[in-house]
């Protein structure tokens, strides 16, 4: 095995059990992702993309197969280690934003820092930077319910970035954005990948957005349909189209 493999997935299966109904969402998935890679995941609705991302982000457990992060099986991580990983190593951008209601933009973005050991005095500066990077400096003290869909999305992104995580899991981060804001977000993500060497795993429906990545994994009905390199990548400065 190569040294720089970060995520190793073998015959991964995930079945949801709800009372009598069994829903197989992932039915035997295998791939590796290297440190610093930028991978896009595509596929029709219901094909298991979000499910995979949740398992990779330690938010859910798979039912069969192997998932290793940094060479260590998911089952071998303790609860506290997992909490630390979620806090420091991973940044999650949810499809449904998941902002705290009745809470300001500032406090929403600050949240991950409360659970990390960033000193109190640095917190606000870091948060303001993260908010600025998504272009929301004029909305710092708005409550999340007062924001538009696109603005909420950007708060969710700022929150995922604020702890400077090594891996970013992004579940359709540009899905609700116009092309201009979408480009801004993709620039940020690209920057994180290019300049800081962060690993990015991004779900998208848009082929154009997917082509920012180095590699596209396509899902169909819980299995991988194709896993290909992107030959002609888009760059943020090329402009953003839908």
């Amino acid at each position, binding site marked *: 095995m190569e040294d720089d493999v970060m995520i190793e997935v073998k015959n991964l299966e995930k079945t949801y059990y709800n009372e009598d109904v069994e829903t197989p969402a992932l039915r035997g998935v295998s791939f590796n992702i290297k440190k610093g890679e930028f991978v896009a995941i595509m596929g029709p609705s219901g094909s298991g993309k979000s499910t995979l991302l949740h398992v990779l982000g330690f938010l859910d457990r798979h039912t069969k197969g192997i998932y290793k992060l940094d060479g260590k099986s998911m089952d071998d991580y303790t*609860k506290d280690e997992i*909490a630390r990983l979620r*806090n*420091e190593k991973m940044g999650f951008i949810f499809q449904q934003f*998941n902002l*705290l209601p009745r809470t300001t933009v500032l*406090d929403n973005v600050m949240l*991950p820092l409360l*659970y*990390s050991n960033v000193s109190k005095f640095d917190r606000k500066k870091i948060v303001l930077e993260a908010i600025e990077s998504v272009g929301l400096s004029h909305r710092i003290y708005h409550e999340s319910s007062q924001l538009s869909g696109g603005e909420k999305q950007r708060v969710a992104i700022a929150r995922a970035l604020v702890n400077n995580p090594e891996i970013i899991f992004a579940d359709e981060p540009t899905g609700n954005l116009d092309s201009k804001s979408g480009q801004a977000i993709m620039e940020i993500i690209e920057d994180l990948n290019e300049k800081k060497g962060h690993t990015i795993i991004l779900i998208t429906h848009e082929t154009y957005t997917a082509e920012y990545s180095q590699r596209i994994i396509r899902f169909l009905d819980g299995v991988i349909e194709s896993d290909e390199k992107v030959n002609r990548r888009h760059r943020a400065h090329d402009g953003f189209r839908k």
Partner: protein
Amino acid sequence: MTIQDSFKTALNGLKTNKSRSALTILGIVIGITAIILMMSIGQGAENLILDEIGGLGAETVVVRPGREPSGPSDFGETLFADSLKERDVEALSRKSNVPHLVRIMPALIVPGAVSYEGETYRPTILGASVDFFSDTFDAYVEKGVAYNDADIKQNASVAVIGSKVAEELFGFSDAVGENINIKGRKFRVVGVFQERGQVAFFNIDDLVLVPYTTAQLYLLGIDYYHEIITKVDDPANVARTVRDIELTLREVHNITNPDDDDFFVVTQEGIVKQVQTIIGALTIFLSSVVAIALVVGGIGVMNIMLVSVTERTREIGLRKAIGATDKDIISQFLFEAVTLTALGGIIGIILGATFSMIASIVLTRVYDLNWAFTFPVSAAALGLGVSALVGLVFGIYPARQAAKKSPIEALRYE
């Protein structure tokens, strides 16, 4: 997460749900208010009672007939018991029997009214000796004179009256030398006490004293006493004197087994202890009522916390997803519960203190009692501790329920 952050997070959580938070702590507020009110008023009542008993004087020892009452129903028995007679007074007066006794007075309570020229008044009428009252209770005759031992020996129909009695019957005219009527018998007023107010069990101003011999013979028609009040030379000798009195009376009454005693001895210390026992028992009883109230309040807190945990399932899921440990979640919700109940405790302490202060003002102004407001510091500390504890105990279950949730399931909760 630091304690400070947990605390701030908890406060924010409470602030975003203000009205629910207020309703949640209502039970705690009421419970703690009740504790403070109860403790403060209990303390005030104890002080008041002890203050009055204090007037009895540490050297005063009272002998009463009958069995020592162990409950309210026994008190009637002592009133009708006839075991204390002249021979007992004689035996107790002998220095060889009770060496430290300096004064001795038989006393009788005469139910009834006094009248003068159509004016009728109901004071406390006692068959007693004026000297003893002067000596033991500092109640001196201001106008006229006290009747003396000779009057007592001769069953004289004379009386010394309190200042209030004089005012009620005679208004501004002089009472001394006038004849008053008690139970159809004429008594000449020989003296009036100076204003003195409440001393021990007696309001001196509202007293009519007649010789105890006269009371026995003409007013009650009995040959026994209702009690024998004595004075010991020094408070240090009280315990010894109580023993001497008991031994002497047992001998006079031919009693060998103390369980058969047909009299009992009361001292200030004994009454103080009794009062403290009664108030203590009352406090324990009321405390248990309040404790139940607090448990109910606590269950209320737990209930609302559980609702809150369910309502905020998505918040919990998110916090875990971005790195909160189980411990972080538990401490957040525990902090919320404890902050809530401690706040309820503080409000309860303020309310309880305010109410008992109002009560003390009403009692002094309206009822003319010598009631001092005391802020029960120990009760306040206890109240605060208890309320925080309630939060801790009843918050732990909801907090653990919250921490148990898997992040993605919690996030998907609707």
